[in-house]
């Protein structure tokens, strides 16, 4: 019934239109899902929108969520460009937060604020990068499937965090709750905007997005990544060291996820606990993909998905609409996007009639 015929040239309009239409359709599916639980979808979406962008404060909260999404997703883009997969940002984020916390707990009295924060950032990057180096090495030398190894490492990282929080790092003054003590001011990332929670991490995110964009467009490494992504066999034939490139991209990507975890606890939570939002590591995958693997577009998409998350968190409390609506909408958008991409290269025929 459905038939595809190759286009002579790639349709540029569709390439821009398809992601936008996918977002609309994804939102539509979310609306239908909401209707099934007897809530008016228009009310829900209006509430999400107001909850995400309706006041200066919620607007700033949207940016707060966009920060880790952006930091993680631009790193993922490097890996995804090669047609390799890092699904382990969740774990790298946790390990980065743990590494940063070590210094926040042990060096706050001996280091000045700028030095301590620099050390914590580096620790976060190193932690995430090391955690990413495990699957990268396994992939490069033993061909161990990186999708599975990175995901399993996420669970392992989560239990390491739980071990620390229920064990050596639990602050005895917290009545048994698994929390560290609140970080000294020295270990808190400075705020960027008064009376909001927007912190220095925003600058990191924007700078990193630009750097990654330059890496992809202007450097030899970026060129090689693109060649590998387009045709791995050809890349190997032209003498590109694929293993080396995978490892470097994974280290950068893991480092950025680790940095995201670090800035989240240093800039927002001000302590280490079990709930530090590592799920951003999964949402960032969607950001990377929705942005068409373009780090600059990722800024807009991070903001959009950050808003969806903040808005949905609001209606979970006010309208009792479960937070699962976010995953439902995000996955639906992805489905439409993945399915729709074929139209940029192919014409669609239905029962012999050309549709698009």
């Amino acid at each position, binding site marked *: 019934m459905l038939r*595809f015929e190759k286009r002579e040239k790639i349709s540029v309009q569709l390439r821009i239109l398809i992601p936008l239409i996918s977002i609309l359709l994804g939102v539509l599916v979310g609306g239908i899902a909401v209707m099934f639980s007897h809530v008016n979808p228009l009310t829900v979406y209006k509430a999400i929108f107001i909850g995400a962008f309706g006041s200066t404060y919620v607007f700033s909260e949207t940016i707060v969520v966009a920060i880790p999404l952006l930091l993680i997703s631009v790193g993922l883009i490097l890996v995804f460009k090669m047609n390799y997969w890092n699904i382990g940002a969740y774990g790298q984020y946790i390990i980065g937060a743990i590494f940063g916390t070590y210094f926040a707990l042990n060096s706050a009295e001996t280091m000045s604020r700028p030095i301590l924060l620099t050390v914590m950032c580096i620790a976060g990057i190193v932690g995430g990068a090391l955690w990413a180096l495990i699957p990268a090495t396994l992939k490069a030398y033993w061909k161990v*499937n990186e999708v599975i190894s990175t995901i*399993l490492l996420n*669970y392992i990282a989560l239990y390491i965090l739980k071990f620390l929080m229920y064990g050596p790092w639990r602050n005895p003054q917290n009545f048994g709750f698994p929390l560290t003590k609140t970080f000294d001011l020295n270990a808190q990332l400075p705020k960027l905007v008064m009376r909001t929670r927007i912190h220095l991490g925003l600058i990191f995110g924007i700078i990193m997005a630009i750097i990654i964009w330059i890496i992809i467009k202007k450097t030899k490494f970026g060129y090689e990544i693109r060649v590998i992504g387009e045709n791995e066999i050809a890349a190997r034939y032209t003498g590109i060291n694929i293993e080396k490139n995978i490892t470097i991209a994974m280290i950068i990507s893991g480092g950025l996820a680790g940095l995201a975890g670090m800035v989240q606890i240093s800039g927002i939570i001000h302590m280490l606990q079990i709930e530090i939002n590592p799920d951003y590591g999964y949402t960032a995958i969607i950001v990377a993909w929705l942005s068409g693997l373009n780090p600059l577009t990722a800024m807009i998409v991070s903001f959009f998905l950050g808003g969806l998350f903040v808005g949905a968190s609001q209606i979970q409390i006010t309208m009792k609409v479960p937070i699962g609506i976010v995953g439902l909408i995000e996955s639906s958008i992805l489905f439409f996007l993945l399915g729709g991409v074929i139209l940029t290269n192919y014409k669609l025929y239905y029962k012999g009639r050309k549709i698009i």
Partner: protein
Amino acid sequence: MRPDAYSIIIILLTATVESGTILLFPIIGEIFTQRSGILNLGIEGMMIIGALAGFATAFITGKIYLAFFMGMLAGGLASLIHAFISITLRGNQVVSGLALTIFGLGVTNFYGQKFVNLQLAHTLPKVIIPGLSRIPFFGPILFKQDYIVYLSYILVIVTWFILYKTKVGVHLRAVGQNAEAADAMGVDVYKVRYFWTFFGGLMAGAGGAYLTLGYTPFWLDSITAGRGWVAIALVIFAMWNPLYAFVGAYLFGGINALQFQLQAIGTTIPSSLLSMQPYFLTFILIIVATLLVKAKHIGVPKELGIPYAREEK
């Protein structure tokens, strides 16, 4: 003290089979999906959809086998999204599978809210098989289980037979090894792929339903706890052979049962480190399996993850 230790081992191994069964279904399903050349990373999503569909049906109707069937069916239906995107629309299978997982977790959180912390009045009843259950040691472990566990034993043998001894199996393997050649032979590549992707969904749904109907008869958010990902790892460990699916599933089940028992008894080992063990074991298994597959030259289905476009040939 000897009989005591003996009965503890029996209890442990019985729990191993129960816990392993949750994985055995999805592993078998994914083996066949991957054999057809389709990589479905959405097992976690399909499992949890099956888990909720099964739980909800059992909770509302009280009919436990109907519930199991509904769980299976729900998993199957979910797999069709992935099938349509990967087979007809030739979309990226890795991302589509991830999206399916996110979809499953989202949808079950959304519709499962009203069931959270509720418990089933009846779980799958144990059925003691006369004769077989009296075999020393193995009898009580393997044959004092429920019908679904028995179904899983049969499934392993039947699917092994189908894969290696029937024409259906030959076609399936042909499509997964060389879709173009299979097409030339007259095999409908699309049909084969749709069918076995759907089968993979049914099996993932079955595993999820067994989780909430037999193993832990209550509903919680994200109750599958990463088992879908473990299943995918164990597909490689099984080297795409249904017979070996047993080994991985029960190894995971065993370590899971063991750490559970240790936590129940109360050891000095922190519970977080015990809970980590099944995932850590799977992580080691996937490395070992990859090296084994390489050494023994047992190939991944060569077409795995590659869309097939007929009209271009």
